[in-house]
């Protein structure tokens, strides 16, 4: 468990997988001996939120649910959006690139091109899922948040979609399980004549992406959805 008085450099030395999280908060390297708290101050970041996100990512079993419930929804949504952006700009093209390199390392292996086909299908589904959240889920959540802050109740509930957050968030599992399938097919069943190092890089990227997606889903399902449900209950009661 990390705390705000620790040097940010020490935290990154201890777990370098946290680097992408820093980027999502707009923090770049070169933080010298500054503590996590100081770095947050410099960047205008909510330090409590920052450290909880780091700890949640670092330790999948750590989940400070009560503390998360205190953070405003826009902060959580902003973080989730940044995460999406990171998937679009890094993981999705990176995996495709590594997959293509792996295939190029073994010319004439039909088995490997099968994986690309599968990956493209996964990518398409992931894109649809992320875009749906960006276009519909997050605006809905933010809209609900604004309404609840303004009035505590809605005068004309008809203005909101006749949907609950539950319906918005139905499709997670499929995307996660496809990624797991891809990893499993490569690890357990691949027999083509491939380049070892390229395959290792790909698997390592897939594993990192899987961890990231899992953390992302956890924040959506265990944090965002419960808060939204609470607000829905309050607003629609009146």
């Amino acid at each position, binding site marked *: 468990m990390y705390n705000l008085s620790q040097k940010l450099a020490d935290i990154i030395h201890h777990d370098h997988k946290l680097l992408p999280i820093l980027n999502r908060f707009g923090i770049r390297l070169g933080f010298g001996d500054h503590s996590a708290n100081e770095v947050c101050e410099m960047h205008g970041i909510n330090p409590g939120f920052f450290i909880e996100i780091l700890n949640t990512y670092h330790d999948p079993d750590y989940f400070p649910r009560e503390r998360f419930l205190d953070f405003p929804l826009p902060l959580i949504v902003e973080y989730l959006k940044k995460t999406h952006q990171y998937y679009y700009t890094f993981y999705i093209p990176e995996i495709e690139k590594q997959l293509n390199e792996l295939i190029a390392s073994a010319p004439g292996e039909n088995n490997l091109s099968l994986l690309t086909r599968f990956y493209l299908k996964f990518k398409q589904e992931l894109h649809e899922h992320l875009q749906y959240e960006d276009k519909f889920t997050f605006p809905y959540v933010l809209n609900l948040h604004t309404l609840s802050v303004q009035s505590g109740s809605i005068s004309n509930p008809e203005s909101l979609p006749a949907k609950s957050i539950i319906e918005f968030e139905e499709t997670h599992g499929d995307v996660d*399980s496809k990624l797991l399938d891809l990893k499993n097919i490569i690890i357990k069943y691949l027999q083509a004549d491939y380049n070892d190092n390229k395959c290792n890089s790909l698997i390592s990227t897939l594993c990192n992406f899987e961890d990231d997606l899992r953390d992302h889903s956890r924040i959506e399902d*265990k944090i965002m959805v419960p808060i939204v449900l609470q607000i829905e209950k309050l607003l629609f009661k009146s």
Partner: protein
Amino acid sequence: MNIRVLIIHQSAIVAEGLQKLIQNSSLQLHDHLRVFNNPADITVHNGSNYIFISSTPFFQTLYKNDLINRPEASYRFIQILTESTTLKDSSGSDAIYLDDSHIQIIEKVRNSINSFNPEKSNAVNSLTERETEVLKLVSLGNASKEIADKLNISTHTVITHRKNITEKLGIKSISGLTVYAILNKIIDTDELSINDLI
């Protein structure tokens, strides 16, 4: 095998004491051993095996919570009981008593770990002939109902086969199963366009 042991108890002395005992044993759980004060903080990962060591009230919470109903993970439970509240049953493997010795406690946890049946998970998960037939039809895009009609079995049986196939292969999605079927020449792609299948 991926086994996680979670200790959930309202008493810090009991929970952390138990954690220390297990840490100092030969069980080698490392960071797969966790202590929780609140069952709500627990998250369950797909494909893992869990042993919950917990007091009775928390069991009820765990049962109510949908997290332990997830089919992707499997579970064992050990209750922490004070001797006075319950009669010891002779096997004693599903409960740890506060007056148990160090050795007894470790033995109980070890039995629970072994009960995840290492023989099964180490075995070569080859599909039966029937499962291969079902896999073939799934890969070719048939729904369970269609498969049931073609093989002259009930839809329920098809669903059971599909569950077993996914469990054996570790592949859940239809397109993933199709990739497996092609790689293992269960379906012949010469006559089919891969693009139509995946």
